[in-house]
Every structure is written in structure tokens, then in C-alpha cells.
């Protein structure tokens, strides 16, 4: 196997032994990590893997391998780390075409010089790759104003499980030619193919970007402050609600909650919005300097990225108080580990840190999250296990929930793109 892979990608493109162990998926160590240097090499690897029935885990920088269920077997991790170039960037068009292995941080560096950005801030920050954000449909607080990857991606190159190279979508900002397979691939978690290249729509950097912190005595006070901002039509770029212990990162007193409001736009509009936030929440608002704000957003993302267990509880924004109440019933919530909520989108993340979780309590966690899921699903909400320790999954928690009768379609689609069933087998849409 190794020799044949080297024949395709060269010696530098195959890592084995200790170098491969670092890429273990839920503790399952791959026989090799393959890092193709071109789309054609990736296609040849996948065609061979399909023919041989080798199980493949698509990956980028390897920072998000712990999603979903543990795979039964991993023969190869296939990484886009060497597909990391900026292939086309026309600042006048506000579009860019990049290798999927380019990190969001590197991309940001290229764009900032031209006064542009990709307004996407998933928890892993700049270290994660564009391809991973797309494959996992990861977004962060900025989703409120700017949306999720489905709102940013114009086109992509996908290598299917059996090695076909598909150019999906396009490079222009508006395109309805053919079916929108780009949307299908976004969030498909590598089960339809390896995303090798991504065309994105960019935005001009806002003239002013201000972050405000509003302290709140407790969960209800925080919900009320966020609701007041929403009702006042202030239209922030992000509206986050942070429980202790992470609220301390914002500078509020220990034990307090915080509402963090990010405002973007022209100078007058942001100044006006800032004043209105002060009016509707009734004082105590602290504006952060630019550096301090950047640190805070990075630190909050880090809390999620570093969590041993990360679950997302989602329902309508108007139901935020109920969703929070449900989340607060999880063991140790807001005391041992923080809740972070996208208040404008109704999504509460339970970011359980390593010191607050142990496999000994796996069954307790599985039961608690299952019961939270039952409560939310009864109202049309969801609970997704963004990252679950294998023991919690083993204790009976399905990371993703049940898509209902549409599952039949999803399974059919998976088979169209990965007929041999080698991609992320058993982990998603099973």
C-alpha cells in the first residue's frame, strides 16, 4: 500500500509511523497520512483507495479530526495540507480561489493588505483550513451578519470517493447554471469527497469594527439584554452571550455573565449603534480597544476549539431562555465550564473543558445530552455533538440526530459520490 501511494504522491507525500500517529482519529491510528501535491494526485489516490477498499479520512490541517463517531478502521488520512496556494485573487472582483489546505489565518493575511476579508470566524480561528470550514460548515459569532460557509462559497473542486474531479459552482458571485452541488458538499464532512479548491466571495473590511461588553447578573439578565439589542434593530455583526467561567475573559466580575456586541459599518452608523446599545441595556457598557477585542474573540473561539466535549443546542432565537435553561441542566454548566450562545441565531454551545470531563462520566453525559435533545427536538430544535469523546458516543449518543425520511435521499447521494463507501465511513449519514 505504502509503495503504491508513494508512486502517486512521492516520498514526501506519505507519512507513516510516528508521523501518522499524530493524525489519529478518535484514537484510531491510520496506516499512512497521504498529502497529495495536486488535485490530480488526490484523484489518483482516491481512485486507488476505492478500488482497494481502503478507508479514508479526509482532512486539512488535522485540527478537527475529532468530530462525529469514531471510525471502525482508518487506512489513510488524506490531507489537503499541500494544496494551500492562493490560485487567483482579484481584489477588484472581491473573489478569491484558494487551495483547500490554506489556513484561514494565511488567507486573512493576504486579504487584509487589500482592505478585504472573508467574514468567517469558526472556533479554530486562523489555524483551521478553508477546506475544513467548508466541509464542516463551521462558522462563528459573525454568522449573525455574514452567514455561514454556504453564504460565502461560490464554487469548489471536489474529488469524489472514486477519484472523479468535479468542478462545482463557479467563480462569479451569481450563478444558477445546473444544480447547486456546492451547497450539498458544504457541511458534508468529507463523506462526498475531498474538497481541494474553494472559490469564495469576499467583503470589504468595515470602516469601523467595535466590540462592546455588557455585564449581566445572571442568565436571565443576559437574555434580556440580548433581546433588547435585537428588538432595537441595532443589527450587530455578532451578539454573544457568555456564561461564567468564560465571561471572565471579557473583564466582567467573577460569577457574572456577559453579553458581547460586535458592531460593524461606517463610523457614523457604528457610533450611533453604540449609543443605542447603551440606551437599551441601561448602562455598564464597556467598549474594548481593537487589540483587546481581537484577543477576546480569539480566546472565546479557543474555549470552543479546546473543549473536550462540544455540543450545540439550537432553537429559535425567541426561545433562547428555554434553550439556555436546558443547557444549564447539563452537569457543571456555567460553573465548571462555560456556555457560549449566538444569541441572535439561537445556538448555545456547551464547551466542556478537559478538566471538567472524564470518561468515567460518559454515560451521564450521554444521558444528559439525549434528554436535552429530546426536549429541543420536541420544539423543532436540535442538539448536535460537534465534538464528542468516543466514550460518550459508545454510551449511546448519536452525534447528529435523525434527519427523518430525508435520510434515504442522503444515503443515495452518498453512494453517488462515494460508491465504494470508503470516505469517513460510519461517521456521518450512515
Amino acid at each position: 500500500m505504502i509503495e503504491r501511494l508513494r508512486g502517486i504522491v512521492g516520498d514526501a507525500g506519505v507519512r507513516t509511523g510516528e508521523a501518522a500517529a499524530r493524525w489519529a482519529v478518535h484514537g484510531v491510528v491510520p496506516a499512512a497520512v497521504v498529502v497529495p501535491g495536486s488535485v490530480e494526485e488526490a484523484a489518483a489516490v482516491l481512485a486507488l483507495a476505492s478500488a482497494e477498499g481502503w478507508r479514508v479520512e479526509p482532512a486539512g490541517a488535522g485540527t478537527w479530526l475529532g468530530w462525529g463517531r469514531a471510525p471502525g478502521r482508518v487506512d489513510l488520512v488524506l490531507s489537503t495540507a499541500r494544496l494551500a496556494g492562493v490560485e487567483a485573487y482579484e481584489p477588484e472582483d472581491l473573489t478569491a480561489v484558494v487551495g483547500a489546505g490554506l489556513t484561514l489565518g494565511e488567507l486573512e493575511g493576504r486579504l487584509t493588505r487589500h482592505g478585504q476579508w472573508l467574514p468567517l470566524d469558526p472556533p479554530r480561528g486562523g489555524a483551521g483550513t478553508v477546506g475544513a470550514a467548508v466541509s464542516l460548515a463551521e462558522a462563528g459569532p459573525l454568522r449573525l451578519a455574514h452567514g455561514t460557509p454556504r453564504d460565502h462559497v461560490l464554487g469548489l473542486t471536489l474529488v469524489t470517493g472514486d477519484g472523479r474531479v468535479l468542478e462545482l459552482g463557479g467563480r462569479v458571485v451569481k450563478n444558477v447554471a445546473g444544480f447547486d452541488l456546492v451547497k450539498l458538499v458544504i457541511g458534508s464532512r468529507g463523506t462526498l469527497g475531498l474538497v481541494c479548491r474553494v472559490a469564495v466571495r469576499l467583503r470589504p473590511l468595515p470602516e469601523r469594527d467595535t466590540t462592546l461588553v455588557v455585564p449581566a447578573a445572571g442568565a436571565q439578565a443576559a437574555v434580556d439584554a440580548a433581546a433588547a439589542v435585537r428588538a432595537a434593530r441595532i443589527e450587530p455583526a455578532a451578539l454573544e452571550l457568555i456564561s461564567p467561567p468564560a465571561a471572565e475573559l471579557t473583564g466582567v466580575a467573577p460569577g457574572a455573565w456577559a453579553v458581547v456586541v460586535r458592531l460593524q459599518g461606517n463610523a457614523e452608523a457604528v457610533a450611533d449603534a453604540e449609543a443605542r446599545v447603551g440606551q437599551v441595556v441601561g448602562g455598564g457598557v464597556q467598549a474594548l480597544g481593537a487589540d483587546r477585542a481581537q484577543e477576546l474573540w480569539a480566546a472565546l473561539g479557543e474555549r470552543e476549539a479546546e473543549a473536550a466535549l462540544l455540543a450545540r443546542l439550537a432553537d429559535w432565537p425567541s426561545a433562547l431562555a428555554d434553550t439556555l435553561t436546558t443547557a444549564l441542566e447539563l452537569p457543571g454548566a456555567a460553573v465548571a465550564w462555560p456556555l457560549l450562545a449566538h444569541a441572535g441565531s439561537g445556538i448555545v454551545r456547551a464547551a466542556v473543558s478537559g478538566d471538567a470531563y472524564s470518561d468515567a462520566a460518559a454515560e451521564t453525559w450521554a444521558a444528559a445530552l439525549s434528554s436535552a435533545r429530546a426536549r429541543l427536538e420536541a420544539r423543532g430544535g436540535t442538539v448536535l455533538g460537534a465534538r464528542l469523546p468516543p466514550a460518550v458516543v459508545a454510551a449511546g449518543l448519536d452525534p447528529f440526530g435523525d434527519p427523518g425520511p430525508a435520510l434515504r435521499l442522503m444515503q443515495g447521494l452518498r453512494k453517488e459520490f462515494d460508491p465504494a463507501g470508503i470516505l469517513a465511513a460510519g461517521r456521518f449519514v450512515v
Partner: protein
Amino acid sequence: MSDPSRTERVAGEGAGTAARLDAALVAELRRIVGPDGVITDPAALLVYESDGLTAYRVRPSAVVLPRGTAQVAAVVRRLAGAGVPFVPRGAGTGLSGGALALEGAVVVSLARMDRILSIDPENRRARVEPGVVNARLGRAAAAYGLTYAPDPSSQAACTIGGNVAENAGGPHCLKYGVTSNHVTGLTVVLPDGEVVELGGGGGETVGYDLVGLFVGSEGMFGVATEIEVRLVPEPEAVETLLAIFDRVDDASRAVSAIIAEGFLPAALEMADQATIRAVEESVYAGGFPTDAAAALVVEFDGPRAGLVREAERAAEVCRREGAREVRRARDEAERQRFWNARKKSFGALGRLAPDLLVQDAVVPRSKLPAVLARIYELAAEHRLRVANVFHAGDGNLHPCILFDRRDADEVARVAQASKEMMRACVEAGGTITGEHGVGYDKREYMELVFSDATLEAMCGVRRVFDPRGLANPGKVFPVRVCREWVGPATQFEPAGAVAGARREAGLGGGTAA
């Protein structure tokens, strides 16, 4: 795409069809939707023989008008049982022949499903039936200070269901995004009659994003019977500029400059001299100087604070790029006059020539000056009149060729020029359709932008939803591509011989774009 001289009568009618749609099946359909819910009278079917692209016509074997998801499911199940294909249809304002009932298809009209099921102002969502007219949803949302953002120019007539099928755009999509950015959930009747819920509700996507996949599937994955959409707040303020240019090139460079310099207009539209003159000679005259080579409408919306300064900075860019005059609308009435040059332009152009052919290509914004110049060049080479009125900020061109279908030589030049224009757009890095859809009209252009492997993958996706190819057969794919597609031989009727042939070959009712 097709020979524009002819109203094309597409095979699919006649004896073979009648055998499939027998009296017993019609009776069963009547039992499901009521006696007045099935149309088979040939005269009454005339209304359904084309969409807004009236160059193609085919009479459906019947039209069924169900009410509610259960009736749609029962109708589709029954048709599937008999192996009869079907075409979902909204208001029939589409511009790609997507609603043509090929292969003896029955039209499933969603006209009677026009209820706004709910509006949830707090969560900014609405749930509607597919027959709800776009502008009506906008008006209903306005009661809560909200609006539905996608605004195709046909919004007074077109339906949300049709918008979902085509992934419709509109002038304000520049800032707000197209239909797929605003649809959050769907109830879908699959081509075998099964009902599935995709997305919707307050939760996150579970499994694949089938909502995103379904939007823009041109009726080939089934029938959307309920649609959940995002509503957005009505902007606090709007500032609208009209910039007049003596050279088209200056106007298109101004467009590129506005985008490149970091403005985010709500809309950025362009009209050239031919368009301006047509409008000024019509009842929609807005006081535009008819000697101008081009006009831009630049609109900003959002918080009141700072908006005037932003508009003034954009006006400065226009002047720097050579605008001879930039006006800022003083009130809503003046704003509407600025917009008339854009919104009523297709109707006004219809006065200038018996026939129009409109395209929908998209190019990278920085390529606008070059591509636009190439389009005028091609028109001159082929001795044709072309008018350009389009979504400049998105790079979404609508070159509009004026011609007379009775002039066979001119018609041949139109066909050649339009092919070369499309090629120029694709070669500049663009695509063949930005908002009208592929439908029947642009199928053969698909190979300009997609490889065989990609087209075959799209067919594979279609087979998952519709293994028997019963939902809107004969659309989107070039004839040779999909295995399931056994296209009928297209029959042409001699030019001029078609009863009721309308003058707008390639364009319907002035509601385009």
C-alpha cells in the same frame, strides 16, 4: 440558444400522450382535487403552453390545480403510478422555458396554494405556500417592519415557489443575496409522491443541506409545497443615486471602481443609451437625458447615520470616472423615477422591435468594461441592435438583441451573435446564467461551463431524487448527457405559422430580470 426566428413547437403532444393520460386517470385526478381542479380543454390549456420565454411552446396534456401538500402528494403518486411526467408551475413568468410540459407532462399548477401560513416577526421567518406572489409576501412582512429580500423584476407576478425552483435573484441581491440565501426550510413532495421535510424550524441542519441543494433544481427534484424563508429588517434609510455618463466604458469602469473601493451598495444597476431612449419614449419617462451613453442607478441602504456620506463618496467615484452628472434622489417619487429606467426597460424595449432576445450571463466585475465592449463589437459585426440593461454590481449581464423574426437573414445573425456573446462571457471567467435558470433554452450551453464528469454527477444527483425522470423531464442537461434523458425530436413549425405567436420571442411580458 435556439433559432430565434421560430416559435418552437416541441414534441410531446398527440397520440402517444393521450394514451398515457387516459380518461380513468383524469377522473382519478378529479377525485383528488375536485372537478374544477383539472383542466383538459385544449383551449384552456393554451395558457399553459409556454412560460415567459414564449419562443417555445408545447401544450401540456392536462393541468392539475391541487390545494395543500396532501393533494399534491396524491396527484404526484397517481401520476407516478401511471408513469406520466409532471411539471410544477408557479406564475409562468420564467425566462428559460423551464415550465414547458415536455414528454406529455401534466402541469401541476401551484396557483391555488397561495396562503401565507405564518409570519414570525421575532424570529424573522415566514412560512408560505409556493403560489404566494413574491411582492405579496414583501407587503405582508412590511406590517412588521420586515421584508423578503429577493426581488426579481417580475416580483409583482412571480411566485415564491417559482423563485425557489430557479433560485431567483433581483437588483438587491447584490447586498442581500439570492433566493438560496433566504430559504431555510421546505416541505417537498418527491417524484414518487413521498413527502419529506427538509430543514426548517429553529434547529441546525441535520445531515446534508438538502434545502440548499433543492433551491435552483428547476422542478427536477419534486414539488416544494411549503417554503420557510428568512425575513430581513426594512432598512432605516435609503439613498439612491443616478449617474449619467457620456461613454459606456466610463460607466462600466465606475461600476468596477465602486466594487473595488469597498462600497457595498444595496443595488448597482446599469442602462445604456438604447435602453434610456426606449424608456424616455415610453410612459415611464423619468427625465433621463437621451443623449447619455449610459446611466447607473446606485442605491445604498441601512442605518441612517453615515448613509448620505457613503452615497456622496460613491458619487465622487462616479464623477472621477467621468460621470457628467450625478443626482441624488430627493424623495421616494424621484427614487422611483430613477428605478423606472431599470425596471420598465424590457417593456419599453419591446416597442422598438418586434422581437427581443435576452441573455443572463455573469462575468467577474473587473471584466465588465472589456466584456461590454465586446458585446457592442459583436452587435456591430453582425449588424444588430443591442440594448444593455443589467445588474452591473453582480456582473450579471442582460444583453438584449432587438430583431424581427420575419427577417430570416437577421435571425441567423442573432443566433450567431448571441452564441458569440455567451462564449465571450464564459471566456472572461463567467457563467451562462445568473438568475433565469437553464431550463429548456440554455441546455446546450451547459457544456461551456461544466465537464462531462460534473454534468454526469448532476444527473446522478437527479436520479437519487427522481430515478424515473418524471419531474420536469428534458430540462437543464444537454441532450446527450443524461442516460435517462431520451429527448423527443424537436419539431419546428414554419416561421409565422404559429397561431398567437407573440412578439416577444425570447422574452415574456416585460417582467424580465
